[in-house]
């Protein structure tokens, strides 16, 4: 494989381009109008504009992406995550155009993309599944049948979209009286969001942990599962902090999880990278939740505790290499890694997206710190896409050291021009439950509710005094044009003030 088209943007496009460079494969970037000056475009050897800013006009345009691969002579296409990564039609279109799709076969994407079919496949492979309905409940299934199913499963019950995933389009129903209206609403939302209004029901487990198993499978039937990731710190079903290994998983459970994951993948003829997600309850019982047939956002924590480059292996598997990874090495963690997803969101305003120009950015570094990002000073966080600034990862020889390093790195991270969740993460890492790793998937939502909107930017008085002094000098410099010396000469405060005045 000599040339790969990266069918994505932002940090994951940068990540894939780096793997291409490591393998001396030429990367091709595609970009929407507002991404013309994005980092991933400059890092690639070639770049092809593919349309307007909205994903539907560019990064979701299968025809344009396949055409871009054709005119650049790319051999392979890497879909990243999100966008078309789990679109079976895209995988098929690449295959039909003679391109190597760097991911699983289109049939595996389609199978696991139907959450009910995935549950059946997992059950057939002998994995425990969350008690629920086996078949999709389409528009033809009436309320009495659904109510009966809910009774069988037991309340509280979750309504989920068959064509959904990634934590989107889910509803909890606590009481039978609420079921009918919740089903109506869920069907309507699913139809609008995923183009398929079919739903299914699952028992809602009480305070489970979200534990997932990364795996790689080659084209020759070898499946290698990796040490698990814990992703229980979620805000409204969206992952916010991930780590590996899970502090709650002992070697015995790890063997069971990895074996179950490998069996499921093998049973559906899976190839390339994928992740099996499980829910683990308080007794250590685990249940298959869903399978993600793509590289995941949080893959760096697995790379940090195993030393294995997952993206590089995705490319190698796609070009026909055999997996030569020692399964024991993949399933045994070395040290501990934690990842914080730094988003351009304002945690003091309900985590509202904060798009705009990044006026300054300085990422942390030093021992054990990895920052996967496409953001830079002068860059933009566009309004059209996920406002992810970076994935900040800290590795340590144990969890306390990893956490200490993450704290250090968060304190060093300087981003201005947009609001970020950095202050929120600094607060979160100080919570006693975080240090004790005593969380579950509802932990963060409950904690945030308790805060009742108390700002994360609350500051102690000693820092406040410094801030006031600095602000006063800043203002004085602005007014009198006699700012502090710049290392002995000049008037840099005033320059700053003038720049600010022009921008205002």
């Amino acid at each position, binding site marked *: 494989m000599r040339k790969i088209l990266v069918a994505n943007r932002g940090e994951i496009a940068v990540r894939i381009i780096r793997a291409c460079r490591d393998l001396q494969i030429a990367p091709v970037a595609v970009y929407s109008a507002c991404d013309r000056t994005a980092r991933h475009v400059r890092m690639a050897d070639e770049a092809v504009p593919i349309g307007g800013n909205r994903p539907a006009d560019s990064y979701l345009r299968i025809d344009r992406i396949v055409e871009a691969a054709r005119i650049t002579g790319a051999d392979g296409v890497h879909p990243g995550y999100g966008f078309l990564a789990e679109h079976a039609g895209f995988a098929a279109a690449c295959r039909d155009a003679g391109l190597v799709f760097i991911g699983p076969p289109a049939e595996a994407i389609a199978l696991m993309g139907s959450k009910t079919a995935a549950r059946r496949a997992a059950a057939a492979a002998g994995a425990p599944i969350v008690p629920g309905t086996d078949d999709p409940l389409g528009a033809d299934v009436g309320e009495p049948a659904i109510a009966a199913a809910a009774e069988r499963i037991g309340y509280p019950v979750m309504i989920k979209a068959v064509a959904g995933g990634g934590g989107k389009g889910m509803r909890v129903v606590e009481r039978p009286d609420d079921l009918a209206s919740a089903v109506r609403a869920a069907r309507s939302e699913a139809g609008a969001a995923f183009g398929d209004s079919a739903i299914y029901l699952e028992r809602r487990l009480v305070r489970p942990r979200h534990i997932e198993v990364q795996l790689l499978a080659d084209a020759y039937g070898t499946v290698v599962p990796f040490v698990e990731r814990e992703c229980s710190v979620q805000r409204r079903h969206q992952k916010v902090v991930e780590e590996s290994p899970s502090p709650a998983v002992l070697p015995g459970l790890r063997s069971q999880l990895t074996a179950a994951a490998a069996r499921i993948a093998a049973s559906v003829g899976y190839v390339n990278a994928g992740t099996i997600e499980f829910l683990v309850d308080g007794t250590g019982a685990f249940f298959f939740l869903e399978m993600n047939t793509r590289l995941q956002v949080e893959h760096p924590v697995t790379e940090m505790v195993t030393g294995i480059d997952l993206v590089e292996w995705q490319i190698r598997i796609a070009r026909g290499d055999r997996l030569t990874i020692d399964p024991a090495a993949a399933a045994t963690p070395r040290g501990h890694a934690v990842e914080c997803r730094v988003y351009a969101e304002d945690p003091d305003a309900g985590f509202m*997206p904060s798009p*705009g120009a990044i006026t300054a950015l300085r990422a942390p570094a030093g021992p054990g710190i990895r920052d996967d990002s496409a953001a830079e000073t002068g860059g933009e966080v566009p309004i059209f896409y996920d406002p992810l600034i970076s994935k900040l990862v800290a590795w340590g020889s144990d969890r306390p050291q990893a956490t200490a390093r993450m704290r250090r790195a968060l304190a060093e991270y300087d981003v201005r021009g947009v609001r970020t969740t950095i202050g929120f993460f600094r607060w979160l890492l100080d919570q006693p439950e975080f240090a004790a790793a005593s969380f579950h998937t509802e932990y963060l939502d409950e904690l945030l509710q308790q805060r009742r909107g108390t700002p994360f930017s609350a500051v102690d008085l000693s820092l406040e005094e*410094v*801030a006031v002094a600095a602000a006063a*000098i*800043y203002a004085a410099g602005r007014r009198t044009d006699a700012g502090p010396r710049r290392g002995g000469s000049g008037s840099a*405060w005033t320059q700053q003030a003038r720049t600010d005045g022009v*921008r205002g």
Partner: protein
Amino acid sequence: MIVDVEIDGRARRAEVERRGAVWQVTIDGRALQVAAAAVDGRWSILIAHRDARRGAAGDEAPADDGGGVASAWRSYEVTVETDGGRHIVHVDGRPVPLAIADRRARTRRVRGEAHAAPGVQGAVVAPMPGRIVKVLVEPGQTVAARQGVVVVEAMKMENELRAPRAGTVAAVHVTEGMSVEAHAVLMVIE
């Protein structure tokens, strides 16, 4: 020079006087010796320890090579970010939102909409294009700092914007159903 700063709903008054390479900043009666030097948009702020012994040239800058150790200073990295009519002073990575009283209040009219400018400190500003879903307050109403004042739908989510300060709703520029552009002033709290 007197600079009034509003921080976390409280007023702080600072008197600022330049003495050679060092500023004397007196906040609520407490005097600080502050040295400030800039490096590419970041400031190295040094504040003399309160009980520092001073040499004969008491106001010498920290970098002087007079030989020997003159004094130790508390060290901070500070950056100043503008945020509409307010500022965020980052002190060692911790953001401190505040407002500096500024006598020069300007507004510009661009395409018929008022846009936020330094001096309009109580403005509630749309961070991105969106649609007004619900206006939660009315002119003349008293609001607390951070109280929800308007709900804007953007990027497929509803976002509740909050009052940047406690005060009275002076003007509401939007109605439910309106579309707004990024940086549009939605209402003003005085």
